[in-house]
């Protein structure tokens, strides 16, 4: 697989949810591409559509409320949106693995860890016999940093810590040797020290296997640590997309600028006021016409309330949805 070639391309994805208050577009015209062997960070605050994007790629939106309304999700050129459920089962776990946010609830409480891990080998490695599957599972547990892996195989999820459970989740996501790993806030529920260990583990494994990673987070610090590319989401839109270095050096969208400005810095004066982005995210039920960031934007213009800003490319792979850039 050639590094740098897009392996997963999301093209004008629209995902909607039916709620009591009507249908909302949780993800609206989202496009990005994940290049083989790289890590793409998808960053944004709670409810901006990050997880819905991830679940859309897995075709695991909660049914019947969540629906992919339009758009394409191409994995090596194959549109996952068009696949029959049967065919999708061969993609999940085998071609795309996924790690979830909550290690406490994402494992089945009544099955042993070994059983849950071996299940992935049962599904995707028919070439191995039962003993080999067991051995592969033990080896993988050791690889993700679980001590005494053989003993852990017989334990239940409640018997190990949150960090260990997330390692088990990672092992399960990688057992099918997927080309793409989707990590949906894998460190959010963990202690800070454990977060660092898990990040390092994901980074190591990515380098080792050469897989592409879609890393979803709300923490810009994490993005800076591990991602080559970044897409910033706001209220269902991707508002800015750029290589990580370019984004941190020269953020284009006022939202990205606000996010970066609101990060505490060691260089800033002690006990000074931390800049914030004023206002709140508009409800998906009542999105304003035009730009979705207008009510919080320090540079808001008349035009922002009338027209919808399209992506404006400033560099080859750096674009943002803002009229300021058209100038």
């Amino acid at each position, binding site marked *: 697989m050639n590094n740098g070639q897009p392996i997963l391309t999301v093209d004008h994805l629209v995902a909607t949810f039916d709620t009591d208050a009507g249908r909302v577009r949780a993800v609206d015209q989202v496009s990005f591409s994940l290049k083989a062997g790289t890590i793409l960070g998808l960053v944004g605050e709670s409810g901006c559509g990050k997880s819905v994007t991830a679940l859309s790629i897995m075709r695991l939106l909660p049914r019947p409320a969540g629906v992919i309304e339009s758009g394409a999700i191409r994995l090596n050129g194959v549109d996952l949106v068009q696949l029959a459920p049967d065919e999708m089962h061969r993609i999940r776990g085998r071609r795309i693995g996924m790690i979830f946010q909550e290690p406490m609830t994402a494992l089945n409480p*009544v099955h042993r860890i070994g059983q849950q891990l071996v299940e992935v080998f049962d599904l995707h490695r028919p070439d191995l016999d039962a003993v080999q599957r067991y051995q592969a599972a033990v080896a993988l547990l050791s690889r993700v940093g679980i001590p005494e892996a053989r003993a852990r195989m017989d334990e239940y999820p409640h018997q190990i810590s949150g960090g260990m459970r997330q390692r088990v989740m990672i092992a399960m996501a990688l057992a099918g040797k997927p080309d793409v790993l989707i990590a949906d806030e894998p460190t959010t529920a963990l202690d800070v020290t454990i977060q660092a260990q898990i990040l390092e583990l994901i980074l190591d494994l990515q380098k080792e296997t050469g897989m592409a990673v879609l890393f979803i987070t709300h923490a810009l610090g994490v993005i800076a640590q591990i991602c080559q590319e970044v897409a910033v989401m706001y209220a269902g839109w991707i508002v800015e997309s750029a290589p990580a270095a370019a984004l941190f050096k020269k953020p284009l969208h006022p939202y990205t600028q606000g996010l970066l400005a609101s990060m505490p810095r060691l260089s800033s004066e002690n006990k000074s006021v931390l800049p914030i982005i004023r206002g709140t995210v508009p409800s998906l039920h009542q999105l304003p016409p035009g730009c979705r960031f207008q009510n919080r934007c320090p540079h808001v213009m008349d035009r922002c309330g009338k027209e919808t800003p399209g992506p404006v490319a400033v560099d080859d792979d750096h674009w943002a949805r803002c009229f300021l850039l058209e100038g």
Partner: protein
Amino acid sequence: MTAYFIRRFLLIVPTFLGITILIFVITRFVPGGPIERIIAQAQQQALEGGSAAVSETVQRQPLSDDQIELLKKYYGFDKPVLVSYVSWLGKLVRGDLGISTRYYDPVWAMIRERIPISLYFGLLTLIATYGVCIPLGIAKAIRHKSAFDDASSVLVFVGYAIPGWVAGILMILVFASHWEIFPLGELVGENFDTMSLWEKALDLAWHSMLPLTAYLIGAFSFMTFLMKNTLMDNLAADYVRTAMAKGLTFRRAVFGHALRNSMIPIATTFGNNISVILSGSFLVEKVFNIDGMGLLGYESVVERDYPVVMGVLAISSILFLVGNILSDMCVAAVDPRVKFE
């Protein structure tokens, strides 16, 4: 865990004593009872005797004080209540439940005679409830809000809303009286003893059809909805999404992952099914003229047949207490997180 269950079994003893003392004391102090019944009978006889010499004293009190003392002694009412209780308990430990004060039969023999009827209906109800409710609950959870789900909900709720004995009377009117498809009552036909084994089985099944339906009609709702709701909760759980993300089909995620978790609430009452040995519904038995445990228990209370009341109570409370422990064992068996310390 073993220590926990040993402790639980030992706790049966004080709980059992508490239940039985309470009821024993109540039986001693409520009005009615064998002596008053005999007095009433004597009054009746005296009146029917029609003797002109019936004095007013006889009308009020046909028995002399000596006779009453004798009766009290006979029934054990001459001793203080706790002394009587201890002697009842002493006999119980030796397996003697006493003699019915109404039929003068050994209580244990009366209960034992009805156990096959209880077991027969109890086991059939049990098998039918679990056999219908669990698959139905699963199907309803998977097809939530479909036409099938709505229609079966209506059926189950209508069944729940109709008391079993009302359904019994309706069924007798329609199927036994109007169309004469099923018998009016009783558990077996008149010439049961002369039938071959196959005919006996058919006859029993034919007679059981209506009463069994009456027993069952309200039984489905609780278990069906318990199954449906817990399974739906589990289908929405994160670990089912994880299972799907691994590449499992929805079907395998349901049956391989969600189902066992959904069995935990079902298991919390499973051990109590041991009580089928003494099960019975007085009203259904009355409607279908079946001489089962429900009828025995009810009549023993109405007739103040205290040895029978205490006998039924003793056995059913032991079954209930043991059933609770069995239920705990079932929960521990399906849920590895449960650790009894």
